[in-house]
C-alpha cells in the first residue's frame, strides 16, 4: 500500500525511526501524559479529559527544518490520497487536509504565527536550524497525521479542540465535534434575548450538551441573572463539557447535570425561558453509510436518532410545553428537509396550540435545518 511507502521514506529521514517499529494495533500515540491541568476543578470526574494540544505545555523541541520535513511528509500523504476520500464518502479533499496540516502546526508550535508562516514558505528554507518549542513531540506529530490519513481520525480529535463561533471548544473521542451549522442556534437566541430582556435574565436549558458548546455560547450572551442548565446522558460528555465551562470561567452561569433529556430538569419545570437542543437525529439505517470521520469515530450515542431519526426530537416536542414558561423560546436542530417539516407540524398542530410563531429556519447552506418557536 502506498502509505507504507511514505512511512518508509519518513522512517529513513526521521531521527525518530525507532518509534515507528511498534505495533499499530492500538492508537500509536494515545496521549497518556500526566495531566498537567489541575486547573479544571469540578465535582465531575475531569480526570478523564484529555488536554488538547494547544493547551499543553511545550516540553518538546524541533528545528524549523525538522518541522518543515514533517510538513512535507504530511503533504505527501495528502497527495497520495488525492480525491479518494471525497469520492468514497464526501470526505476531506487535499486542499482541506493541507489546511489542517497548517492548523495542526499552529496548535503545536509554541511561537507566534510567523514561524508557521515561514513553514509554509518554500523559499525560506534550506537548513534552518532555529529551534522552536513544541507542545507535542515530533514523533507524536508523525503518529497523529498518520492516524488522520490511515484511520480517518477527525482532525478535531487529533488536536483535541474545535473552533466554534468565537470559542475554542475542547473535544475528544466520546463527544460529538460541534458542527458549524449549530452555531446559528446561538445567533437565533441572541436575537430573541436582545428583543426580550426578560428572557435574557431567565433559565435556559441545553439538552444533550455534548462538549457544552451550545450552552457556553448561550451563557455568554445572557445578561446578569441568566443561567444555563446543560444536560447529557454521557459521562464523557459531562466531563468534557465541565472542562470547557471551567475554561471559560462560566461555572457560576452553567450547571451541568447528567441524565436523560428532561429527567434532570424536574426542579425547573415550567420555568425555562428557553430550550435548545441538537439531539441525535440521523436515521439508524444511515449510520453505516456515514463519512468515515463521523461513522467510525464519533459516538453513535450522539448521532443515532432511531428509525426515522425522530425518536429524540419527538421526545423533545412532547415535553417542551411543560418545561417552558409562557413566552419561552425553543430551537431544535434537525436533519433538514422532511424532518424539520414534520417537527414544525407537530409543534404547530399537534401540541394543543401550546406554541406560537413556529418557524423553519434554513442553515447557511440553504438546508431547512432548525425549528423554532415560542411557548404561548
Amino acid at each position, binding site marked *: 500500500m502506498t502509505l507504507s511507502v511514505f512511512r518508509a521514506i519518513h522512517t529513513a529521514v526521521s531521527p525518530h525511526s525507532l518509534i515507528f517499529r511498534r505495533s499499530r494495533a492500538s492508537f500509536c500515540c494515545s496521549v497518556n501524559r500526566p495531566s498537567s491541568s489541575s486547573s479544571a476543578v469540578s465535582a465531575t470526574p475531569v480526570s478523564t479529559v484529555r488536554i488538547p494540544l494547544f493547551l499543553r505545555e511545550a516540553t518538546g523541541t524541533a528545528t524549523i527544518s525538522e518541522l518543515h520535513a514533517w510538513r512535507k511528509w504530511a503533504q505527501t500523504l495528502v497527495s497520495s490520497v488525492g480525491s479518494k476520500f471525497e469520492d468514497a464518502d464526501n470526505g476531506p479533499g487535499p486542499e482541506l487536509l493541507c489546511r489542517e496540516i497548517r492548523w495542526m502546526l499552529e496548535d503545536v508550535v509554541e511561537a507566534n504565527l510567523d514561524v508557521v508562516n515561514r513553514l509554509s514558505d518554500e523559499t525560506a528554507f534550506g537548513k534552518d536550524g532555529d529551534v522552536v518549542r513544541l507542545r507535542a513531540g515530533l514523533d507524536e506529530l508523525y503518529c497523529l497525521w498518520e492516524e488522520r490519513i490511515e484511520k480517518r481520525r477527525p482532525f478535531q480529535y487529533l488536536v483535541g479542540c474545535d473552533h466554534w463561533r*468565537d470559542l475554542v471548544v475542547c473535544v475528544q473521542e466520546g463527544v460529538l465535534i460541534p458542527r458549524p451549522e449549530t452555531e446559528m442556534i446561538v445567533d437565533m437566541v441572541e436575537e430573541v434575548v436582545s428583543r426580550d430582556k426578560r428572557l435574557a435574565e431567565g433559565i435556559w436549558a441545553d439538552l444533550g450538551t455534548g462538549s457544552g458548546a451550545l450552552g457556553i455560547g448561550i451563557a455568554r450572551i445572557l445578561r446578569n441573572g441568566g443561567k444555563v442548565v446543560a444536560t447529557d446522558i454521557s459521562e464523557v460528555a459531562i466531563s468534557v463539557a465541565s472542562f470547557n465551562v471551567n475554561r471559560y470561567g462560566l461555572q457560576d452561569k452553567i450547571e451541568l447535570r447528567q441524565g436523560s433529556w428532561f429527567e434532570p430538569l424536574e426542579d425547573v419545570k415550567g420555568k425555562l425561558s428557553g430550550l435548545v437542543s441538537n439531539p441525535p437525529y440521523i436515521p439508524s439505517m444511515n449510520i453505516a453509510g456515514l463519512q468515515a470521520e463521523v461513522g467510525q469515530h464519533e459516538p453513535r450515542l450522539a448521532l443515532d436518532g432511531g428509525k426515522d431519526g425522530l425518536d429524540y426530537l419527538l421526545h423533545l416536542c412532547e415535553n417542551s410545553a411543560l418545561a417552558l414558561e409562557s413566552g419561552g423560546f425553543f430551537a431544535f436542530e434537525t436533519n433538514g428537509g422532511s424532518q424539520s417539516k414534520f417537527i414544525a407540524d407537530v409543534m404547530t398542530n399537534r401540541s394543543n396550540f401550546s406554541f406560537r410563531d413556529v418557524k423553519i429556519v434554513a*442553515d*447557511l447552506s440553504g438546508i431547512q435545518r432548525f425549528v423554532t418557536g415560542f411557548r404561548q
Partner: protein
Amino acid sequence: MCFALLKRSSIRHFTYFNLRNHRISSLSVIISSVCQSQTVEASFARSARHYFTSSSAVVTPKTLISVSSLAHHFSSLSSLESRKTSEGLSVDKILDQRWPILDESQSDWRSHAAAIALSIQVIKKRLKWPNLVLRAEHLSSEVTRSDIWENPDYAGKVSRDHGICMGKIKEVNGLEQELIEHVELLKLARDEGDSELELETMKALLRMRRNVKEKEIEALLSGEQDPCPCFIEVQAGAGGTESMDWAAMVMNMYKMWAQRRGFHTTVVDEMPGEIAGIKRATIKVDGDYAFGYAKAEVGVHRLVRISPFDSSKRRHTSFAAVAVIPILGDVSTHVVIKESDLRIERFRSGGAGGQSVNTTDSAVRIVHIPTGVTATCQNERSQHQNKAMAMQVLQSRLDQLEMARQAQLNSQLTQSLTDISWGNQIRTYVLHPYRMVKDLRTNYEVSDPDSVLEGDIDAFILSFLSASLDKKDNYLGNGTGSRPNFVPPLFLSCTGLGSMNQV
C-alpha cells in the same frame, strides 16, 4: 484626579484657546496648578509642543514653557513666514544660492545645507504645503468653536485631524529652524576660528542631511488612508495554469515583502488552481502604513517566461491583477450596510450537513445584493470567524466603492483616476530571453527578477510614490495630484486579462 479623565486633546484645546485669545500670561500657572501628576504634565507638554513649538523649545515640568517663546512660535506658525535668521538667512535663500550638492562623503557645509534645503522643499511639496496650512487654519477655527463638543464624533475627528496637521507643520518648521541654526553656528565657528565647533556642526549637518532624506520618504505617505491596514487581492488573468502560477508568485512576492517590512499577513481567501497556483487570493496586511505602500502595487503585472507547464518550451506571457483596499479605522466613515441587503451562504458544503458531516471547512460567502459585491472567506477555523472576516472584506469593498463614487463626483479627481485605473499594466517581469523587471509608470527597472519576486519591491513602490506626488506641480496643489486611493475594487468586473502564447 479628575483631570486624568480629560482627554489630552481637551488640554490642547484649552491651551490653544487661551493662546489664540492672548490670555497667555496665566496659562502656565493654570496648567501647572491643575495638573496633578507627572503624566498629565508630560502630556500637556507634549501637546503644547505639538502645537506651538519648534524642536528647540524646551519644556520643563513646572514652568512648562516660557510664555514669550510660546507666543513667538505661535505667531510664526500662524503667519507661516519662513524662518529667518537675524541676518535674514532662510531656507529659500539657501536654495537660491544654488550651492552644488556633492556626495555625502565630501565634507562641504554648503553642499550639506543645500541638500537639506532641497529635501525640505521636497517634503513641503509632498505634503502639499499651502493646502496643509489652509487646512490647519480651517481646523483650528473649527476646534475653537464653542459648540463643537455638541457633536462628539465630529469634534473627535476634527481634533484628531487638527493634531495631525499641526504635527506635520510643526515638524517641517522645526527642520527649517534646525537648518538655519546649524548654518549660523557654522558661520560663527568659522568667524571665531573655533575648529572644534566647526567640526561638531559639520557632523550635525550630515546627520540632519540623512535624517531629512528619510523624512522625504515619510512625506510620501501623507494620504489620509495611508496609515491603514489593507487587503491585497491578486487575481490570475485568463489562460489557465500558466497565469494561475503567476498569480501565486505575485501573491508570494507580497507575503515576503510584508514579512521584510515587519507587517503581519493573514490569508483571508484563496482559490487554488486545479493544477498549480491560485485563481485568486486575498490577504490582510497589518502594519503601519500598509495601505500607503501597497497602494502603489495596484494594476496589472505581466510576466514573460518559458512556461514550466508547456512541454514544447514556448515563451508565455501571463497577467495577474492586483487590487489593494484600505481597511478604514474610522468607523464613522463606513458605508452603512443593511442586514436585509445581504445574502450570507456557506459554499462548497456538500451533502446532508449537520451531524452527518465532519469537516474543517466552513467557507462563507456574503453577497451585497444591491451592488452585487461579494466577499468570501474560508481560512478561519470557524464559520463565525469566516463570516466576520468576509464581512470585513465586504465592508472595505463597499467603502472603497463609495470613495470611488465620490471621487468621480469630484471632477478634480478625474485625472488621477485615469492615471491609476486598475486595468492599467504597471509592471513587466521578464525571465526570458533576458532578465529584467520594469515599472511602466516610472521606467524604474532592475535586472534581478529573483530578488523582486522574493519581495524586494520597496524601490519600485517608493519610486512610484515619489513620481506620482512630485510629477505635477501640485505645490500649489488642490487635490489634482495622483493619490491612488480611489481604486474601484478589482473583482467587481475583471475583463481583458489574458494569457497568450508568443511562439
